[in-house]
Structure formats: C-alpha cells, structure tokens
C-alpha cells in the first residue's frame, strides 16, 4: 500500500512539474524519469527485500499507466503509451544484463539515450499519423535538450542506486 501511495504522489507531482516548467517554450519529459526510477527501484531493491527474479509485468503496467496519463494531457491516446512501453521494456532488458557496471556516468548516458528514444518514438508516431510539421533538426535539438535536462534530475533521484 505504501509503495502504491508513494508512486501515486510521485507521479502526480512529476506531471504537475511537467505542466509547469518549460525551457524557451520546450516542454520537458520528466515522465521518463518516473520510468527510470521505477525500473531502478524495482529491479535493484534494498537488500532486505531483494527478490530472486522480479516479474516484468508490474513495470510494464506502470509504463502503460504513465503513457496513458501523458496522452490524456495531450488529448491523443496512444503515442505515449507506445513510446513509454517500448522505452521502458528496453530499459528492463538493459538492466537485466548483469555485465554493466552502473556508475553515475553510465546512468547519465542511459538517461540521456533513453529519453531521446522515448521522444523520437513519440515524435515519429505523431508526424506519421497526424502530419504535424516539424523540422527534423529542431526535433533532434528539442529531444536532446529534454534528455540533457533529465540527466541531473535522474542522477539526484537515483543517487547511489543500484
């Protein structure tokens, strides 16, 4: 129950921040940080509660919910669900590879890379289905800005984890 309340509060706060903060008209992608934090906390729990093989179903449902909430804010259901689910699952696959050494630098690269993947999947769906005109260089620039902004927040929130 505590786990649920904690994540509901964190999710609400994140989406509130996402609606409030913009950088030069660019909205930020804090919702990916939720996915990153959830995956980190779920697959690398504290030693006392350590599970042998945690199920992937709960994280997938979480990605779906986050995507759905984000889509509700945009008024189009679907694109964020797809981007968040795919990005989240790719993150799970990466986290399960035990040979990676999770340094802060590695985490920063992962946050940056996966935020960009999330943004690009979302953008290509919107461009393909809704013919939204947007320059590709501009798209890369905004994705990169969002990814770079996510790095410090992600590192602070996942400090000393895993």
């Amino acid at each position: 129950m505590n786990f649920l309340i904690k994540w509901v509060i964190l999710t609400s706060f994140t989406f509130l921040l996402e609606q409030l903060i913009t950088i030069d008209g660019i909205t930020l992608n804090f919702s990916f940080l939720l996915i990153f934090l959830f995956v980190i906390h779920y697959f690398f729990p504290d030693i006392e509660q350590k599970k042998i093989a945690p199920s992937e179903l709960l994280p997938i449902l979480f990605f779906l919910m986050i995507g759905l909430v984000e889509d509700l804010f945009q008024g189009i259901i679907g694109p964020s669900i797809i981007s968040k689910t795919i990005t989240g699952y790719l993150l799970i696959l990466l986290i399960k590879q035990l040979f990676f050494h999770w340094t802060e630098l590695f985490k920063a690269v992962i946050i940056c890379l996966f935020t960009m993947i999330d943004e690009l999947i979302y953008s290509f769906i919107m461009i393909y289905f809704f013919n939204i005109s947007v320059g590709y260089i501009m798209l890369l620039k905004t994705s990169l800005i969002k990814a770079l902004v996510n790095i410090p927040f992600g590192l602070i929130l996942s400090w000393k984890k895993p």
Partner: protein
Amino acid sequence: MTKRVNLFIIVGICLISFLLISYQSKGLLNFNKLDISVLILPFQYMKNFFSETLKLREENKHLKEQLYQILLQQKSYHELIEENKRLKELLNLKEKRKEVISIAKVIRVGSNKFLKTFWINKGHEQGVKVGMPVITLNGLAGKIIFTSANFSEVLSLTDPNFSVSVRVERTRVEGVVSGTGTNICVLKYIPLEEDIAVGDILITSGTDGIFPEGIKVGVVKKIERKKGFFQHIEVIPYQSETKIEEVAIVKT
C-alpha cells in the same frame, strides 16, 4: 516462457494503441484533453509573482510617459478619425467590424509536446470558440485550438502548423505567412517578379476566412531570390511570443 508472455503483452499494447491512434487521426474517435489549469494556476501565479512585481514598476513608469504623449496626440487623431468617417461615408464604404469577444490574460506557456502554444484564462463560457483569432495591441498572436470552460489553448503565430493569408501593405501583393518553430516566420508564395523590400509591413488579407482583414502580422526581414517560382522571405512577427501578457479574442 515469461519473457514470451511479456513480449506478447507489449505487442498487444502497441497494436491497440496504433488502432486508437489511427482512429483518432481520421477523426473517428476523439478524446478530451485533461485540463488541469485550475490546479496549476496557483503555482503559476507564485512563479510569476516576483518577476511581475519588478516588471510592473518599470512598466508603470513607461506607461505614464506614454499616456502623456498619447494625450497630446489624441486631439489630432480624433480629427483624423472624424475626417476619415466622413470620407468613407462619401465613398459608401462599409467598414467591416472586428468584434472582440473577450480580453484574456496569458496564464502559462502550453504543455503541448509539438505545438508552440500558450494558455489564456477565457474559455467557452466566455464565448471563446476553436478557430477564433487571437490578437494583441501589437498584432496577430495566434488562434484558438482548444477550449475548456474557463481556459483556452492558443496556437502561436510562430508554430510551423500556423498559417495566415497576408497582404503586403505597400504593394498589396498577397501571400501566406507560416511559422517555422523559431522566432522568425516565412512569407510564402510570392512570385520572383513581385516587388518586396526589407521593412515591408504585412497585414492579414482576410481571404482565408479565419482572420479578419487588416491585422498587423509582421515585417519583412530578409529576402532571397533563389531558383524556382517563389521568393524566400523571412518575417519578424510584430508580436513576440515570449512577451504576450494580454490578448483579445476576435470574432471572424
């Protein structure tokens, strides 16, 4: 086995989502945007409070100076307006009225992922409808793309998805101004032989049926005559999107 089930679930989620997206893109299915402007508003006020206090003092001083200048000019303007009216009556010209629906305050920058938008504190309860033009004292600012009861989202003039038919004030040549996603707009469909100069003023032509005639849009900044049929013209909008505080919603 579990991995396969998970993959199956993900593929299922994606397929259902794609189905929903394609229905929405064809307009067969519509979902209302989750509007939390009421929740955000107190935080937004707090955020703007300090910067606005400083700005207001400076603005007050500036406005007082302007007021004195305007008072001096007012008298001559009144005479000109009266003269203009008399002349128009003589010419039997019917002046098209631009009816202002409401004056609104910009409450925050839009949270739309793709579109350059901003939110205003007037919605369909105040008579605001989707598609209505939004202007400021400087010129055209955008158009309404979403309304809730007391709030509306405005698509900014500089967004690439925004277009407005315009006329060059000096030569009466008509074209289309579109946003680029930056602070600069482009004037399209002006043939190579047309006379356009840097500094030319662009006003709405009213031929698109959305924006009323005569609203100031921008000034020509740069002209390039490349190969092809049309000139490449950059335009600086009269209304900078970062400096919009109050807007008027106009009925077309």
